């Protein structure tokens, strides 16, 4: 699958124009802002215990045509954030807006048609496809449900074929069942199903983590190509930093429920402002680094039920100060569009050395 073949298969598709959404609200939401998370809190209630706050005060936005990479360790709340962003998990505070409208949490009623262009790609491609239905039918249903188009069978077959080819599969596989495919192929089908709804915004929750190495790169390239050509916005959640570095326009770093650093990917990578970001980047094994092992963070992610006082990162922070133990840091604008939640960060200064 090359970019040019993607482009040609896209040429026949009317690319959704998210910026010109009818009834787009003025005010806080800019014209290109598709998805906004505003001071979002997500808590999980537990019987007999204090609720676990999986996401705390998270604010981020995804604009049309950009990939926002969300990285962090396992259990840091990035998947919960992604699920809340599409309305699968109810926020306990704050809100999620899509094209300026509040994203209602999915209940028993069918999802409102305005929200159906906000879609999700799941981690496990086998689990996200119905094992007992032919993939072509699943994609055809997505076209009908997602776009509200009344298609006869012949038109649906043509659209399904176009979508399958768009994700790099043969149109002839439409009559097969998901178990007849490899993980990478299943993920392509899941992506085709999402594209069938003509989405404006896609939350990709660890879409490549369950795949083998060669499929990972292909799927990441496919997603990046789709964003480049159709202009949709994507929140790309991954713990694979090297992939995020390669495809994301902006990077959001999460630690233990909190967003600790946000900025343009290149800037964050070249001069990480937050000590946690530095530690994460330092933990990537590099070829040519001799026998040196990647630097590791001391300790483990704390027990979510008993979060540390002050800055949530302080027990593991190599640059901890007295203040960090008691006070909660706020976001510092270290550069244009670049924020770090750390006491050592200085406004306007790219990084604290």
């Amino acid at each position, binding site marked *: 699958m090359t970019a040019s073949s993607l482009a040609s298969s896209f040429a026949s598709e009317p690319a959704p124009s998210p910026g010109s959404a009818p009834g787009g609200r003025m005010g806080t939401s800019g014209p290109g802002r598709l998805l906004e998370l505003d001071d979002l809190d997500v808590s999980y209630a537990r019987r007999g215990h204090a609720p676990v706050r999986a996401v705390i005060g998270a604010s981020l936005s995804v604009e049309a045509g950009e990939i926002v990479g969300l990285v962090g360790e396992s259990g840091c709340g990035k998947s919960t954030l992604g699920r809340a962003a599409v309305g699968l998990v109810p926020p306990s505070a704050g809100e999620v807006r899509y094209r300026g409208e509040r994203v209602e949490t999915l209940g028993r009623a*069918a999802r409102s048609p305005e929200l159906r262009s906000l879609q999700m790609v799941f981690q496990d491609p086998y689990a996200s496809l119905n094992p007992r239905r032919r993939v072509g039918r699943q994609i055809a249903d997505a076209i009908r449900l997602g776009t509200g188009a009344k298609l006869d069978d012949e038109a649906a077959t043509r659209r399904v074929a176009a979508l399958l080819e768009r994700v790099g599969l043969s149109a002839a596989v439409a009559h097969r069942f998901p178990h007849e495919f490899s993980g990478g192929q299943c993920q392509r089908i899941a992506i085709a199903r999402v594209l069938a709804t003509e989405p404006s915004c896609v939350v990709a929750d660890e879409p490549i983590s369950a795949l083998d190495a*060669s499929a990972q790169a292909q799927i990441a390239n496919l997603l990046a190509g789709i964003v480049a050509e159709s202009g949709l916005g994507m929140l790309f959640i991954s713990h694979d930093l090297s992939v995020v570095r390669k495809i994301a326009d902006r990077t959001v770093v999460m630690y233990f429920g909190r967003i600790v650093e946000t900025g343009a990917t290149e800037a964050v990578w070249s001069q990480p402002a937050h000590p946690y970001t530095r530690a994460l980047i330092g933990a990537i094994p590099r070829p040519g680094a001799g026998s040196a092992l990647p630097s590791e963070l001391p300790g483990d992610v704390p027990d979510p039920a008993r979060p540390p006082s002050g800055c949530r990162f302080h027990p593991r922070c190599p640059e901890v100060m007295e203040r960090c133990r008691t006070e909660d840091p706020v976001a510092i604008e270290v550069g244009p569009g670049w924020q770090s939640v750390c006491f050592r960060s200085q406004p306007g200064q790219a990084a604290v050395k």
Partner: protein
Amino acid sequence: MSTGDPFSLEVGPLPAQADPGADLLTRQDRAALRPPWRQPLALTGVAIIITWIVIAIFASELAPHPPNLQFGPLNASPSHAYLFGTDEIGRDVFSRVLYGARLSLPLAALLVAVAMVIGSTLGSVAGFFGGIVDAIIMRIADLVFAFPGIILALAVAAALGAQLRNAVLAVIVVSWPSYARLSRGLVLAARSSEYVTSAKLLGSSAWRTMWVELRPNIAGPIFVLAALDIGNAVLLLSGLSFLGLGAQPPTAEWGSMVSEGAQNFSSFWIGLFPGLAILTVVLAFNFVGDALRDMLDPRTARMIRK
């Protein structure tokens, strides 16, 4: 996977499934997965069922006499002329047993089908919606489960009046809860799966999700339960007739024939042969049902306790 497709560029093994241990086959599982021709009991069951179906279809051609014709000697023992003997008013027991297949088999199949549709619909709704809907449906099911099947069926049939149609209704009343319980469990397990979540994100309504997405995934175990249940239904229906609450004389129905035989104990053949007919049908359906259950995924098979 054909070669030459553009997706043959996928290399490497499939990614590991979530729980590799769950897919390990134990020795028993492998025995259960043997092809049908290596499962003698299942084959026997299928043969017996086919035989009875053929008998039911061609009863009028196969039977030497009409079922209700009183023509022969009274209480004649089995002989060349009267294969299974004659009953106390001179009817040919052999002919009556053959005609009995025309009642028991289709009625059992019909009532199992109706109980399956009602039970699995109610159970799926309970499992999918949960909450108060679930509580109401499943408490009613529990209420039915609390009685021994035949006792409740007796009460229902007696309340509705002694008729074959009412006996069928009574058996449906006692049979649907097992389908409800099974399908509720299957829906509960499936409704939180990601393919259901994906469908809801696409805008699928609750009913569409249940019918289009869930139904094909829960149908297998429910059909197995139905296969196991047909034998049970034959037995219950005959039992009600035996007790005088089902088929009424002179209808040639196995249960009521056994009942007549029980009143003429010296002429054992009057009750023995219809009894054997019931036995073979019930055994055959149980053999087939067991084999089908074993062929199911061992994890879901455990949910069908019969």
